[in-house]
């Protein structure tokens, strides 16, 4: 049995996405900037995709810029807002401690360039509080950037309320919606979003392509200089096939969003219930305000990498926030941000399930994780000390 349970890392491409891409490579392979028919056919594909993508998030096509993915979109959104701020003498940015590194590292760079950055704490439930965002807004704040849903623990942030607070105070609001687009309902108008980043391969589209939504009137700064593609805001010949695949994948995800979410939520809750039976474990993030397919646990007394390797042997592909899986000495900054101490954060497991998961597979996952955790604990000196009362259980 092979169960791919790492859909937050990437997803399998949908048939619709692949079929939308093939003609772009075999037939309409022209350069969209060329004036002859082959080029114009490619241009048409590109613009149709832009319309379809815009429609899904309630934007107008001119507000969509195609990028190489979520990271580029995050970088461009934040850099653009910072540039607007700099021109107006506003050099303060608000974000949160558990953003994706595409956001955090961009902010660190801006700090070195003279910006001041406030990173808000995330509460134990994995949620950012609107009041705290509002309280942090200053006269010189040019941007608030808060992710729609966290990539590790799946918690869904109150972005509509945060966006409303930003509107009231005249501050731009960007959201990294890489994990959310195609999975939960999003509407840039209703949700008060000024800028939004998305990545195709998180919703069954191809890798290497994404988009940035920027509300009309927001002046974007280029990360890549060159030709006049993407209204002069992103140079380089467009990834036509990738964009076509992204649009097809997003259209399909949007069309089936409710049924997919209902199925995934049911499986997710079954997994949370089943894995919650393992002694001395804790679910990371709020049980309900989380992405339909995200299950994230910490198990005391074991280390995440060995858990992943043994699950892989059982055909289950998952992920962990342990230091050993990141190649650094510290476990996931997300788990630390919600207050998990190092000892416990090393024993984390993230399962992000796909729409095709069955009941049988769900039970197999619960059984396998339970077995592997018990096995690793059987020769863990940490577990021995906990059970002997020499150290205190944290979970």
């Amino acid at each position, binding site marked *: 049995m092979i169960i791919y349970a790492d859909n937050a890392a990437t997803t399998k491409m949908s048939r619709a996405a692949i079929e939308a891409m093939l003609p772009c490579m075999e037939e309409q392979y022209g350069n969209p900037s060329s004036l002859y028919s082959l080029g114009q056919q490619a241009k048409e594909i590109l613009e149709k995709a832009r319309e379809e993508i815009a429609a899904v998030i309630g934007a107008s096509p001119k507000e969509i810029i195609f990028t190489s993915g979520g990271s580029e979109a995050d970088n461009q959104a934040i850099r653009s807002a910072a540039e607007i701020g700099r021109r107006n003498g506003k050099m303060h940015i608000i974000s949160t401690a558990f953003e994706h590194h595409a956001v955090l590292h961009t902010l660190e760079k801006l700090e070195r360039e003279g910006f001041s950055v406030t990173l808000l704490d995330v509460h134990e439930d994995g949620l950012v509080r609107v009041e705290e965002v509002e309280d942090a807004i200053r006269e010189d704040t040019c941007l608030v950037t808060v992710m729609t849903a966290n990539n590790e623990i799946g918690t869904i942030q109150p972005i509509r309320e945060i966006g409303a607070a930003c509107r009231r105070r005249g501050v731009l609001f960007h959201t990294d919606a890489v994990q959310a687009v195609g999975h939960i309902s999003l509407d840039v108008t209703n949700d008060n979003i000024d800028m939004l980043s998305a990545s195709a391969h998180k919703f069954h589209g191809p890798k290497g392509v994404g988009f940035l939504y920027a509300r009309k009137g927001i002046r974007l700064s280029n990360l890549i200089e060159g030709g006049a593609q993407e209204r002069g805001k992103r140079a380089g010949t467009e990834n036509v096939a990738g964009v076509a695949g992204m649009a097809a994948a997003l259209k399909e995800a949007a069309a089936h969003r409710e049924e997919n979410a209902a199925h995934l939520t049911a499986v997710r809750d079954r997994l949370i219930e089943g894995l919650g039976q393992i002694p001395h474990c804790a679910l990371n993030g709020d049980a309900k305000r989380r992405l339909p397919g995200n299950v994230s646990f910490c198990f005391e007394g074991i*280390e995440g990498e*060995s858990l992943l390797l043994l699950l892989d042997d059982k055909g289950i592909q998952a992920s962990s926030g342990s230091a*050993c899986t990141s190649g650094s000495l510290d476990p996931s900054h997300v788990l630390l941000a919600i207050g998990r101490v190092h000892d416990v954060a090393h024993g984390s497991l993230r399962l992000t399930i796909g729409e095709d998961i069955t009941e049988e597979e769900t039970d197999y996952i619960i059984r396998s994780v339970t077995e592997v955790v018990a096995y690793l604990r059987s*020769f*863990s*000196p940490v577990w021995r000390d906990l059970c002997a009362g020499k150290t205190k259980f944290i979970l």
Partner: protein
Amino acid sequence: MALYSEKVMDHFRNPRNVGVIEDANGIGEVGNAKCGDIMKMYLKIEDDIVKDVKFETFGCGSAIASSSMATELIKGKPVSEAMKLTNKAVAEALDGLPAYKMHCSVLAEEAIRSALEDYQSRTGERILCDPPAHIGAEEEE
């Protein structure tokens, strides 16, 4: 390419000498849970020979494999020889470890030495041997 060699995966999947020796006369524990690795070694030494050795490890795949290999390398050996175990020998016996995992082999060496020193302090015996230099672990520190 796989993350680990076949040897590492074999020792990780089927660790040798796992467990506890109730009447151990040398016990060593190194590492800490904050860093994500703890190794505990139990030795039963008789007539200056490592008659039995067992380990318990909290850690990643290479930490478990390094513990397992280290126990294999010293089991049945004279104490003086066990004292000479290096992290390099552990890593080589495992057909290599990724650079950022070399510290697991260092931990295994240190756990063995710590257990031997515990034995020494219990028996009052002096083991004459300079601790060997760690190989390939500098970048991890």
